């Protein structure tokens, strides 16, 4: 498509002004569509096959989690928010629990911090693997090479889920973090499993890179969906999206939590801000996460894994008034939790809990980026943003 792409398109474009006699095609993309990664709708105004204006509609997966959290007690919130980012649930649990710990001033034992870091990094690998698979599928289709990469990525991700199954008993919605620490300690022999699995995956990642180092892949991704650094910052894009635009920012290094202040986290950045840059950043992050997890898993110090008395009664945790914002770096970026403590239900549940979803910020980039691209590119761009609708809509 040769239409000139400005740095950022005008999302409030008046179509009558664009072309009063316009013969535009309105393409309703989603909510049920193979590559909207869940239920998400974009109304595209097409001039030929070139997008002139894109109007996204979110909210098809809105489940009222924030309202629900106002009624539930602190202990019960963890398994509920698990379902938000269903590709990286470890981070959801950790985010809310870190916020509650900040509210109550609970110390997290060092062993629990190690476990949290390790499971987080392993989860990051799993999440990026899933992204790689689905992104390849967006480019390659359900019948084609994309599916092959997709299946291979899922094959490797399955091994990570096995690791979590051994640790927590669940493959997906773990409920393993709790106020003040973790609920499950590392079982015997888990470290060996982690080494074996991650070593295996590290090799396979090389294979994916080899298969995707192909002119077709490059043609489909390079120069497609360029997000400038300024636009990324303005929109509040975080994580790999921001780093692919050349901004050197990673909460693990810049606002460390857990034991990240003792770690030397390599922040992967790339210039270009296009789909190819996002792909490179995520693949490098996968390697870095594998490195961190493998380095940590042998050195988990002994000790307790929970800093408070284990949850016995729902109303056990009482919180004084206060407001905190705690953020951590998930595979999709900054997952923040803003909690206003002390609500009804005798201060045992938050007054207001707001989750800052990185996916929603990522999706808000669409009206700025899509115009000027074709429908094929729209799919690639949407895929490269890695949105998880469960998290975006909550």
């Amino acid at each position: 498509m040769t239409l000139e792409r400005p740095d950022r398109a005008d999302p409030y474009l008046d179509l009558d002004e664009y072309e009063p006699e316009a013969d535009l095609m309105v393409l309703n993309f989603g909510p049920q569509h193979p590559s909207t990664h869940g239920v998400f709708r974009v109304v595209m105004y097409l001039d030929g096959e070139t997008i002139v204006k894109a109007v996204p509609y979110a909210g098809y997966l809105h489940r009222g989690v924030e309202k629900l959290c106002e009624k539930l007690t602190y202990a019960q919130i963890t398994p509920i928010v698990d379902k938000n980012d269903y590709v990286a649930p470890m981070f959801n649990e950790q985010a809310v629990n870190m916020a509650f710990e900040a509210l109550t001033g609970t110390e997290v034992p060092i062993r629990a911090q190690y476990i949290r870091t390790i499971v987080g990094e392993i989860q990051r690998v799993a999440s990026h693997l899933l992204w790689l698979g689905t992104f390849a599928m967006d480019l390659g289709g359900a019948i084609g090479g994309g599916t092959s990469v997709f299946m291979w990525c899922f094959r490797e991700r399955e091994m990570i889920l096995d690791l979590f199954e051994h640790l927590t008993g669940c493959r997906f919605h773990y409920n393993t973090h709790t106020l003040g620490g973790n609920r499950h300690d590392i079982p015997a022999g888990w470290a060996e499993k982690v080494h074996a699995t991650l070593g295996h995956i590290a090799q396979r990642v090389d294979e994916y890179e080899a298969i995707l180092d192909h002119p077709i892949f490059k043609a489909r991704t390079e120069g497609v969906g360029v997000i400038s650094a300024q636009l990324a910052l303005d929109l509040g894009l975080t994580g790999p999206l921001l780093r692919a635009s050349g901004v050197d920012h990673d909460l693990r290094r810049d606002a460390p939590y857990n034991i990240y202040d003792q770690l030397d986290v390599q922040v992967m950045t790339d210039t270009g801000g296009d789909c190819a840059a996002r792909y490179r950043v995520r693949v490098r992050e996968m390697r870095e996460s594998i490195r961190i997890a493998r380095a940590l898993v042998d050195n988990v110090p002994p000790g307790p894994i929970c800093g408070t008395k284990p949850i016995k009664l729902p109303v056990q945790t009482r919180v004084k008034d206060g407001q905190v914002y705690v953020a951590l770096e998930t595979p999709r970026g900054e997952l923040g939790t803003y909690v206003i403590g002390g609500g009804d239900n005798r201060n045992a549940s938050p007054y207001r809990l707001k989750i800052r979803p990185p996916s929603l910020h990522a999706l808000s980039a669409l009206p700025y980026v899509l115009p000027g691209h074709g429908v094929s590119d729209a799919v690639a761009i949407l895929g490269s943003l890695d949105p998880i609708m469960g998290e975006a809509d909550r």
Partner: protein
Amino acid sequence: MTTAERESAFVELLRARFGLAEDAEPPPEGFLLAAEHHFELARTLKQQHGYVQYVSVVASHWPEVPAKGKVEGDPEHYEVATLLRTVGPGSHVARWRVRIEMDGALDSLVPLFAGADWQEREQFDLVGVRFADHPDLRRLMMPEEWVGHPLRKDYAIETGHLPWR
């Protein structure tokens, strides 16, 4: 600059230009500012202090507290917390709250941060607080024809649309 230094610089800025009392200790709830400072503070932070990343906006609804004995009553109002962040090492989140009356509106940050568009729409949708000069203040999560704002405290979970149990 480290995070702690940025924090104290932020407090200094609030004291110097945005009407924070000189001796005010940082309260656990975060700084409460007057609404007229809101946009100017965001602009200053973005253009002069490196708070270039838009983080989030959190609105909350506070129902009327009737006066009871010595405790003073408080009319129904909204509170909006805004969060901005610096990027790079020593990242710091600037966070302040603004109180909005029920019929009031807060200046929108969309002219400064494009990302404020959707976030303010979401808060308008779920909590009901209005943002002045927002280019496109529609509902984001709920259907267009939805009545009421779900995250308000008078919108109870048990009433209205009963979910399947």
